């Protein structure tokens, strides 16, 4: 047996090309970055963006190689390749690509340009990717920690801002706590099922359904696992860290956390619940229902009294997490794959929206990254009309107004929920969207309708301009012609066949 382990599993190098690219990019950045004193302007960002592009090419190849009928596993079943994973991975790479474009100008404005941030983006993306493909709870935990540690550092990376330090420390302490919950949950589930691989857990549990049996061990495990996930996706009541961290972290990093971090956590959550725990759906489905309602209502209501745009967007991201939970809840009910595809579509579209929003905030925040209150947005329409237009597009999309990607995202989730006959949840979600709309309207009022108090010019670096333009075009294009994305996403649910 020992010999067998030592022989090592077979590794499909080509199929792992995307991950290896990220790893290589990180190493090169750190090593060459340390040897060569200072790269030319924009080169760090270009290099990182290229890494993301190469990684994306590998994913395109992988998408073609993944079969339509269920998931293929690799490296002794510890990771899974399916369209669901590839689709989510693409979302993570899009997030890296756009964030890098935004970060370039930011770092030069804040005068701490260097390879470290970019390397951390890549390691975070790697961690997120591992979470997405993890087919084993231990591997999932490795990915989670890689992602989390990178994010702690990214949040604290602005050394001259105490808020950034504070955000990093808060995130670290609370995140460590959540990781402990998560790990403890894995231990309990292992205790109950004797396995850590997701399909094996399912096999073990499926065989043992017995009304009189004592499921306490397993239920505690599931509960702890969900707490860990809920923290990562900032579901109420585990959201307390979110506003502080989002506000304190450097603005481009906030966009990255809200996109890549959420994609990874939700993808992993869906995979664990659907692949490993379908036999206990009656136990975890009500938990998700309650979490969804609390998150929807809590996120929207708490946003009302905020006056800082980054905090407002933090609460809005909480409310979006609630919407995605609605999709997860629907996935529990139906055998229909629509719910899962609605979740990945939502994550993908939200990624672009949230990075775009925070890119605008990055531009407005000015030197020092401090001008992020509603007051600072006043008169944006006069100071930078195109930026105001872009912000408006992102905000009305987040409010779910038609002809934007946000509507497509919400429509998908609501359809899934109605299909699962969770009418109450669908209506609560839509009403929460109305409350949340108030928040977006307040931001728009500042940008358009209020007169400017000061006329500090707003600089828009090239990279940021490109990123914002891309996000705007994408938001509207998907709003008008969503067919192609939906068709792709429909394939992205094949892991259910496992």
């Amino acid at each position, binding site marked *: 047996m020992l010999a067998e382990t030592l022989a090592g599993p077979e590794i499909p190098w080509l199929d792992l090309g995307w991950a290896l690219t990220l790893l290589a990019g990180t190493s090169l950045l750190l090593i060459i970055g340390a040897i060569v004193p200072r790269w030319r302007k924009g080169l760090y960002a270009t290099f990182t963006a290229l890494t993301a592009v190469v990684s994306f090419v590998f994913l395109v190849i992988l998408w073609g190689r993944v079969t339509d009928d269920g998931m293929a596993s690799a490296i002794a079943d510890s990771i899974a390749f399916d369209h669901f994973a590839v689709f989510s991975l693409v979302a993570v790479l899009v997030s890296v690509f756009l964030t890098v474009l935004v970060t370039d100008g930011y770092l030069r404005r804040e005068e701490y340009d260097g390879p470290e941030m970019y390397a951390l983006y890549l390691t975070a993306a790697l961690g997120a990717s591992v979470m997405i493909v993890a087919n084993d709870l231990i591997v999932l935990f490795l990915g989670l920690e890689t992602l989390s540690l990178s994010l702690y550092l990214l949040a604290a990376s602005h050394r001259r801002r105490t808020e950034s330090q504070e955000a990093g420390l808060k995130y670290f302490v609370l995140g460590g706590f959540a990781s402990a919950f998560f790990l403890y949950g894995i231990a309990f589930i292992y205790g109950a099922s004797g396995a850590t691989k997701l399909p094996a857990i399912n096999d073990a549990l499926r065989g043992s359904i017995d009304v009189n049996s004592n499921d306490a061990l397993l239920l505690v495990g599931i509960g702890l696992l969900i707490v860990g996930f809920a923290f990562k996706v900032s579901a109420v009541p585990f959201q307390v860290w979110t506003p502080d961290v989002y506000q304190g972290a450097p603005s481009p990093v906030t966009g990255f956390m809200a996109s890549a971090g959420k994609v990874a956590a939700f993808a992993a959550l869906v995979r664990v619940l659907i692949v490993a725990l379908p036999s206990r759906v009656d136990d975890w489905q009500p938990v998700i229902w309650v979490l969804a309602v609390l998150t929807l209502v809590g996120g929207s209501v708490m946003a009302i009294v905020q006056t800082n745009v980054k905090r407002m967007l933090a609460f809005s991201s909480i409310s979006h997490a609630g919407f995605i939970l609605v999709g997860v809840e629907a996935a529990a009910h139906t055998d229909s794959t629509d719910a899962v595809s609605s979740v990945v579509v939502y994550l993908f579209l939200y990624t672009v929206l949230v990075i775009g929003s925070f890119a605008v905030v990055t531009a407005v925040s000015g030197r020092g990254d401090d001008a992020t209150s509603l007051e600072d947005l006043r008169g944006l329409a006069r100071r930078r009309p195109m930026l105001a237009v872009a912000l408006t597009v992102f905000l009305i999309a987040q409010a779910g107004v038609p002809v934007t990607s946000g509507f497509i995202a919400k429509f998908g989730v609501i359809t899934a929920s109605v299909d699962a006959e969770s009418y109450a949840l669908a209506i609560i979600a*839509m009403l929460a969207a109305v409350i949340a709309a108030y928040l977006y309207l307040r931001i728009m009022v500042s940008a358009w309708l209020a007169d400017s108090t000061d006329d500090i010019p707003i600089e828009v670096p090239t990279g940021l301009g490109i990123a914002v333009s891309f996000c705007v075009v994408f938001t509207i294009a998907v709003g008008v012609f969503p067919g192609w994305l939906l068709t792709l996403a429909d394939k992205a649910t094949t892991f259910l066949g496992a």
Partner: protein
Amino acid sequence: MIAASGAAVSFPALSLLIILPIIGSVLVALLSERRAEYVKLAALLTSVATGAISLWVLAAFETHDAGFQFVSRHPWIEPWGISWHLGIDGISLFLVVLTGVLFPLVIAGIDPHHDEKRYLAWLLLLEAGVMGSFLSLDLVLFFLFFEIVLVPMYFLIGGWGYDNRIYAATKFFLYTMFGSAFMLVGIVATALLARNDLGYVTFDLVTLAEKSSFATDTARWLFMSFAIAFAVKVPVFPLHTWLPDAHTQAPTGGSVILAGVLLKMGTYGFLRFGLYLFPEAAVWARPLFLTLATIGIIYGAIAATMQTDLKRLVAYSSVAHLGFIVLGTFAFTDQALTGGVMQMVNHGVSTGALFLLVGMIYERRHTRVIAELRGLQQVAPIFAAAFMVVMLSSIGVPGLNGFVGEFLILIGSFSTARWWVVIAATGVILAALYLLWAYQRVFHGEPDEANSSFAELKPREGALLAVFIAAIVFTGLYPKPMLERIEPSVKKLIEHVEERSDYTQPEIEHSEGEG
């Protein structure tokens, strides 16, 4: 049913009605602010072209065909069964024409005080949204336009309105979105539940209405989810509180559009999506909506009487007038419904013109407080005469358009909703009370110092009003062309309701036929 009528359409007129304003809006947004004259010209040209197409549609419309005409249908979001499905029938025809004509008038006749470029861009986008709402025959497409309208209207009120504009704009946005929240869930549920009958998911209105059936209770829930959205939009008492604020704070152009066509999206929605999709549930909900409509009529009238602000008075009169339209809708007789459709257009013309006049008063006097105005008749007799005609039309004096619609509604509702009508009819008297009283206070008497310099109607304002007054008088004296286009579609709708519920419309003597 779905097939287009005989008039072979060589070009997609209805799609153009939506796309042209969008093109105009983008064009206006892209043009440089420094070339103000080009901006205005671009806006005017696209809106006039849209208006011309709407008039062409009116001319080419087959008078006695009850079905949908000029149908244009293309798959749009295929994975979800959503299609770009447009069509027009007697119920939507005049609303489309009203929209097509009203926008160029507003663009040509009313200047915003600042940022004309943005104002015009929003206005054109609004036109596309309103057109789309009246033309859509796909539930999601309709929802899309119904909802998108909020954005330009929000910015128009918030950007160019009066003192309390941001409060009013936000209230307007959130109220309407609140209603739509239920409707979206209802729309999705309708399509998914109809899958049992159809075997596939479609949001196509005609297919859903003709080929699917829902369990009685289900249909009632679904109907109510749609009804909330429409009731907010109309607005039906007690969901009306956004309206006085939005109307009063909106710039004149915005008020004219809001009263003229935007509110009709609610009443139109009841007909097209409420009655057509869920006939049995609509019959079931009759007492509720008749009661709310009647309360709205009386409440709106009394509240209007109490107003000290002239614009707010007109806004409350809208609540009352729309109550009549809802009453006509839920009376379920050919006459009442025809009157209701007609009154939608009439109210758009008369109240639109009233807001225009109030706007002109504000331009001159910078106040809308009734107590500060007096004796305007002496200094501006032509202005006063124009106001008088429009006001009489709003009251519903015979010979003007308001009478035809209101009379048809009352007479048509009498057989099926007698006691409601008895109460509602007093609303007609109250309308005379508050409008005449307001007229008396504003126009009669000796003008004091502030009012003695009140300027007479300018040629441009006069030309603008002349269009409205011509429509008021023409419809009042010769309503037949309108009625004979509306009636077939209304009859068909009532038949559809009768087929699918145990309701039958009482027989009426034919001599009463046309009001």
